[in-house]
């Protein structure tokens, strides 16, 4: 339940409203580009942005305290044809019926897009250029295959930015940023190639600043207009305050907490209009907002209750806008998830604990409005207050999956490893999913998804896909010619290294095109370094340029598969390599007994060194291999084991694997065990996951665990959860997130026990696997869970 009637009614609208495609931004963008043919690309982009800021309707919805929307609908999804229009054209007729993340789009809108928008962009979009330039052998693996996936880098904008409120946006405001850019422009003579480019950049920044300030001004005017005809004196007062806030920010530095909240939303909105970005992170919100909160409370201008309401309003804003994505991308990033990651808690730059009242207010807001955005992350250091850890545990116990819990020290260690100064490393926030990030950074934090299952398949199938028979990987000898387990493992690593090489090619191709085609004038104002260097963010303007992150998918499933090969073929000689591969070809049909044996082989997630050591070897190899490649700025690539929903689509293109997994079944996510195979305890799963060297996986690691709701239903249970988190982190691990179990899931576990083998329930003074209980005992436990008492 939200903290006020206002936020509750906005929440209801958010829950029940259907996302609707808005063509307005695309129409304005297109018209602007028609008028600027021949001008410098950054300037053209900036002018289109400013046009959108000046022409989009300024709509204030009833009851809003934080205002600004990207289209005519409360839940608007905008189109960005400069990146790609072909997939929209292909898919928009089924937007409202597609299973994952549908949008509403009227026939008139579709007709308008086809007649007034697409024709201009034909041949001019990033997607078309990328597909033309991508080398053919890489394209085989990279374009809509599920083997390597980076379509969010050519069908979409990159996003993956954390605006710098601390050192740039709040202290300066957009008027000063504009003036600085204008001064640089005046001082830069067009006397060299570099300076010509600098001038285009500064020019684009001036235009973008004018644009965002104009947008705010128009909202101020609209609020004033509504206030004049508002009969309710309370709402009238609110509208006048909104008018005042929008007249002030983001042009000037904020003075109050409310102004700062509105500032943050205008920056998000500006970024949305500029490129419809993924992972535009509000960052360390409790840190940069606290001075405003504290000063307002001290002066009696603000109560904690009102602050909570404002934060809830902001959370709803974060959740209302819709990231427009292709159905393919939607399979990887399911759930209208925009990945605006907001981080609370953790140490300050000087290493002291930074937890404050706002940290708690943020947890409370998420519990109250239950919005899927912002992606709420917490940093837990060894010095974190017990009260904060308890508040985190309480939020986990609500069963909503938030917050994502991170090890403060491990995050800092990862950034040190990536080359950051120690103070900056301590000041990290989360980007997108679970990527430790720092705001003065240009980085593709999720550049390519790399399918580890594919490397396993190619190693055991002469370099071919088992499902299609197509040669996809490196040529490999026939499986029966492997004479030792080591040869099999090495063949897998070779295939993996080959996939990494193609992922690098795909990334470099996209990076180069981004530099040429889609400069980011507005987002360049948000990242420190661009102004000083006179360089766009896409060209390496940020203080730190960190190499793109290649995300490995299926670590658990390949470790299990290698362990099964070792045990069945080489250690126990239960079957030959040939027989095993025949079973895989048959998707285990007719090989029930062999599959039983494969399923009984050691599985990652049970604190079993035999298989966990394979996961460690594979992840270390992956780190060294990615790290050996460099991006367009000369920065080494980074490795990660993140989750999102990518383990489902990547599984669909892979045949049966030696671990007993059937063809097309999901792989495993992040450093999590393969679903249902961590049959010991969550503690054993944590110990397994912590054996991976997290500190070198600088793009982040992810562990998802299931917990019975009952375990965390008492203060003792919550303390134990806190202790589990601390213990996991003291083993050096980076992230953990918990799903607590409801009755519905217990019912699902009864129906499909094979998928829920890891589901732990408390029986009588002890906890055990639910699926291992008799039907009558399961019923008893379901009854007890429903009544939440015993």
């Amino acid at each position, binding site marked *: 339940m939200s903290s006020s009637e206002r936020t509750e009614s906005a929440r209801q609208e958010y829950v029940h409203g259907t996302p609707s495609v808005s063509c307005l931004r695309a129409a304005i963008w297109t018209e602007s580009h028609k008028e600027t043919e021949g001008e410098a690309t950054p300037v053209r982009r900036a002018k289109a942005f400013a046009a959108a800021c000046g022409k989009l309707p300024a709509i204030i919805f009833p009851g809003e305290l934080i205002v600004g929307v990207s289209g005519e609908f409360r839940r608007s999804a905008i189109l960005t044809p400069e990146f790609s229009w072909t997939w929209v054209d292909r898919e928009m007729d089924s937007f409202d019926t597609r299973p994952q993340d549908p949008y509403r789009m009227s026939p008139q809108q579709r007709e308008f897009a086809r007649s007034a928008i697409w024709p201009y962009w034909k041949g001019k979009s990033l997607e078309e250029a990328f597909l033309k330039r991508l080398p053919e052998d890489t394209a085989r693996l990279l374009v809509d295959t599920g083997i390597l996936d980076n379509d969010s880098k050519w069908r979409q904008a990159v996003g993956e930015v954390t605006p710098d409120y601390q050192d740039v946006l709040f202290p300066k405001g957009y008027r000063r940023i504009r003036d600085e850019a204008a001064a640089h422009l005046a001082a830069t003579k067009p006397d060299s190639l570099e300076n010509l480019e600098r001038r285009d950049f500064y020019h684009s920044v001036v235009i973008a600043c004018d644009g965002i300030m104009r947008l705010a001004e128009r909202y101020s005017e609209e609020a004033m207009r509504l206030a004049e005809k508002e009969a309710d004196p309370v709402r009238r007062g609110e509208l006048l305050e909104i008018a005042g806030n929008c007249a002030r920010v983001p042009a000037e530095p904020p003075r109050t907490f409310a102004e700062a909240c509105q500032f943050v939303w205008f920056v998000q909105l500006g970024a949305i209009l500029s490129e419809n970005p993924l992972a535009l992170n509000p960052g360390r919100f409790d840190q940069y907002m606290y001075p405003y909160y504290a000063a307002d409370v001290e002066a009696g201008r603000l109560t904690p209750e009102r602050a909570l309401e404002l934060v809830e309003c902001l959370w709803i804003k974060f959740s209302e806008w819709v990231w427009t994505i292709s159905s393919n991308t939607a399979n990887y990033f399911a759930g209208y998830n925009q990945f605006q990651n907001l981080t609370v808690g953790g140490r300050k730059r000087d290493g002291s604990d930074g937890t404050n009242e706002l940290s708690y207010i943020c947890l409370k807001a998420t519990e109250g409005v239950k919005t899927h955005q912002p992606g709420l992350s917490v940093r837990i250091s060894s010095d974190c207050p017990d009260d904060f850890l308890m508040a985190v545990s309480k939020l986990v116990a609500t069963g909503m999956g938030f917050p994502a819990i991170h090890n403060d020290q491990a995050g800092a260690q990862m950034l040190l490893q990536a080359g950051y100064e120690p103070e900056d490393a301590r000041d990290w926030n989360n980007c997108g999913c679970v990527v430790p990030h720092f705001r003065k950074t240009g980085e593709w934090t999720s550049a390519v998804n790399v399918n580890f299952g594919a490397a396993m398949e190619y190693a055991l199938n002469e370099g071919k896909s088992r499902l299609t028979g197509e040669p996809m990987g490196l040529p490999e000898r026939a499986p029966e010619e492997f004479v030792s387990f080591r040869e099999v493992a090495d063949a897998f690593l070779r295939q993996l290294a080959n996939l990494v090489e193609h992922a690098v090619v795909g990334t470099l191709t996209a990076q180069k095109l981004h530099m040429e085609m889609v400069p980011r004038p507005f987002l360049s104002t948000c990242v420190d370094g661009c102004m000083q260097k006179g360089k766009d963010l896409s060209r390496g303007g940020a203080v730190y340029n960190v190499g793109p992150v290649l995300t490995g998918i299926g670590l658990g499933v390949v470790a299990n598969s290698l362990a099964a090969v070792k045990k069945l073929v080489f250690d126990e000689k239960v079957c030959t390599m040939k027989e095993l591969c025949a079973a895989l070809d048959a998707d285990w049909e007719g090989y029930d007994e062999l599959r039983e044996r494969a399923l009984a082989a050691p599985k990652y997630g049970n604190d079993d060194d035999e298989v966990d050591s394979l996961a460690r070897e594979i992840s270390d190899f992956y780190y060294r291999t990615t790290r050996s490649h460099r991006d367009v700025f000369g920065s080494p690539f980074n490795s990660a084991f993140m989750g999102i929903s990518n383990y489902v689509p990547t599984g669909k293109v892979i045949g049966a694997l030696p671990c007993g997994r059937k063809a097309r079944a999901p792989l495993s996510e992040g450093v999590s065990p393969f679903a249902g195979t961590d049959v*010991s305890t969550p503690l054993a799963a944590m110990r397994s996951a912590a054996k991976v060297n997290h500190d070198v996986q600088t793009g982040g690691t992810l562990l998802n665990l299931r917990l019975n709701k009952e375990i965390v239903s008492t203060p003792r249970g919550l303390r134990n959860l806190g202790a589990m988190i601390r213990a996991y982190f003291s083993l050096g691990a980076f992230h953990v997130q918990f799903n607590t179990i409801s009755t519905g899931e217990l019912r699902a576990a009864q129906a499909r026990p094979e998928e829920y083998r890891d589901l732990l329930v408390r029986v009588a003074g002890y906890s055990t696997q639910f699926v291992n209980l008799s039907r009558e005992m399961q019923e008893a436990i379901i009854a007890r869970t429903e009544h939440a008492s*015993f």
Partner: protein
Amino acid sequence: MPPSEPFPKGEKICVSQIQHFSVNDGEGIRSTVFLSGCPLRCRWCCNPETWTSTPKSGRLPGAKEETFGRFLSVAEVMKELVRHAIFYRESGGGVTWSGGEPFFFPGNLRALVRACADRGIPQAVETTCHFDWEECADIVGLLDFVFADIKHMDGGVHERLTGIGNERILSNLKRLGATGIDAVVRVPLLSGVNDDEQNVARTARFVREHFRRPKMELLPYHDFGRAKYRMLGMESFWTEFETPSKERVAFLEALIRSEGVEPVSYR
């Protein structure tokens, strides 16, 4: 008397189960080690596989055979426990020795308890309190917490319910109280059998009289053990009891409190 030395089979101990991530028998996150062998035959016992000190196998109709129990050396038990030391440390948990009756083979328990004490792992025990105090006093001295049962205050009823009188149990409880070790006295609550006010009040007065920080936990009867009897072909030993109502349990907890004993719960 049960044998105290040597081990039942060579140097190995029959361990029925090691339950990690155990959170309902003591503080924090614990590992509960169920040691086989018990002098009592409680008619509601939900762990009949631990009555004697050998592994038991059985199957339910249509299901696979399951085995309860394996022979482990002290080193093997410790290898499993120390893996969880970090979780004990962070949560204030530790190891809980349970059974069966963990004191049934004092030599085994002594070896295990010393090994844990040497590593600084906090330890609790769940015991019937039916053991030779003189022989076991040194073990008790190494424990941090004791859960002890009083199934009934009346010796005759106790014998009908468990096959053994309660004289030695009550006498050991007095000695336990005198040691000052933190303890909780538990009553497995059976409707119409031992949940009458007279028995519960007598138990509470006994606890108050002999323990410095008197605490009791009422554990309402459950029939979750039934499937195991069927599996092990022991159905003739199975007796159905009734679970006292929530209201009854709450009433008895109030009664305990009025007798000056703190009712506690690790649910």
